[in-house]
């Protein structure tokens, strides 16, 4: 089963909760899909057992040996990516329009390396992650690759925890497609509620079963209630309310799951949440097994 943890807003506690849930599940496989700011690997030791270059978007390149400087390419480029017969890597979207019009066939689309993709064997299960080439794009294709790499290690009754990125764009879309369950981590602030609504809409748009939890709920009980109302309206079950707890900061600095601190009130709340979550995961898993076994008419 695959569980994607996202929030819309950054800094709500996705990674902290991903680590805690992965730990409670035993040996969950993990995928760090917050590729711009991958923090998951800091928690786990382990050895990189695989490292591969990853080529994402294609970019155009002009071979100056054949370029006759006719300027046709520049005139068709919609993204301002060709100036003085040179390609601007940042603006180039790899559409190939320039390739199509060049009379000298001097332009080609080449896949550009955007990241190194790793499989890291940690003491508590495999971690699939990437290190981006600075300035590259955390494209949906990379996230898809990270998930595919992780899936190979998930056992039949195992769990893949996907730590997602902030936002609602391409990388987030690729984190939630083909996942079994989304857990939204909300923070009780006006900004957090605003962002939660948008990411919840995204999940609804893609028809994915969605749950939610409120982190640091006691910072603003009123907004916590607003979040719960919103979720109720949307048919999103709120499966956890985690109190603000100084131990969380400690656990981050000590790079340990917060559930490893027996007196942590946040840890206790996350345990409770895990109880609900694992029931839901199991129900979904049974349902899917039944659906897959179908396909034969009597």
């Amino acid at each position, binding site marked *: 089963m695959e569980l994607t943890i996202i929030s819309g807003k950054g800094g709500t506690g996705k990674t902290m909760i991903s680590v805690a849930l992965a730990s409670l599940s035993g040996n969950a496989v993990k995928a760090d899909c917050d590729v711009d700011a991958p923090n998951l690997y800091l928690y786990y030791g382990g050895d990189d057992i695989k490292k591969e270059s990853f080529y*994402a978007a294609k970019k155009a390149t002009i071979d100056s040996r054949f370029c006759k400087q006719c300027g046709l390419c520049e005139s068709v480029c919609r993204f301002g990516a060709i100036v003085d017969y040179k390609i601007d890597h940042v603006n180039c979207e790899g559409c190939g329009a320039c390739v199509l019009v060049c009379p000298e066939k001097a332009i080609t689309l080449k896949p550009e390396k955007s990241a190194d993709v790793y499989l890291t064997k940690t003491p508590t299960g495999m971690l699939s992650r990437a290190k981006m080439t600075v300035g590259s794009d955390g*494209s*949906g*294709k990379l996230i*898809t*690759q990270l998930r*595919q790499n992780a899936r190979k290690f998930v056992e039949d009754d195992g769990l893949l925890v996907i730590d997602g990125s902030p936002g609602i764009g*391409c990388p987030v*879309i*690729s984190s*939630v*497609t*083909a*996942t*079994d*369950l989304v857990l939204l981590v909300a923070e009780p602030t006006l900004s957090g509620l605003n962002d939660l609504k948008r990411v919840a809409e995204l*999940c*609804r748009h*893609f*028809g*994915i*079963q*969605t*749950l939610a939890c409120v982190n640091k709920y006691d910072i603003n009980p009123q907004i916590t209630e607003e979040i719960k109302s919103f*979720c109720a309206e*949307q*048919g*999103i*079950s709120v*499966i956890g309310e985690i109190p603000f707890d100084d131990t969380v900061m400690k656990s981050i600095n000590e790079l340990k799951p917060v559930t490893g601190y027996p007196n942590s009130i946040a840890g206790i709340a996350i345990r409770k949440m895990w109880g*609900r979550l694992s029931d*839901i995961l199991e*129900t*979904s898993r049974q*349902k*899917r097994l039944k659906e*897959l*076994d*179908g*396909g*034969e*008419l009597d």
Partner: protein
Amino acid sequence: MKIGISSTGVAAESLADPRFGRCSHFAIYDTADGSYRFIDNSAQSASGGAGIAAAQQMIDEDVEVILTGNMGPNAFNVIKGSEIKVYRVGSVSVEKAVQLFKEAKLEAISEAGAAHFGMGQGRGGF
């Protein structure tokens, strides 16, 4: 006629893949001579539109029937436009899937499944 089956591998004994857009391979079975051909799913690692690209690949292969587990709305709409027929298979081998089809034991997929084969279509859990 040709039948396309989403497959997890490159042998007739490979398990059919329940996913359409992101399966690793397609098996192309030709009823004329009972032969199998296996092709990579070119859409596998597409960042977007995997279902669309996979559907296009099936159209370009001139299949008349597709056997798969679930087809998302984009792929489904493309296939619908092409008049290729789609049937649902469970976790059986590719050759078993073909056999079941020939015995008319497969259910036609008449509407798109959840986009990207998630679960629950957005209903809350619990």
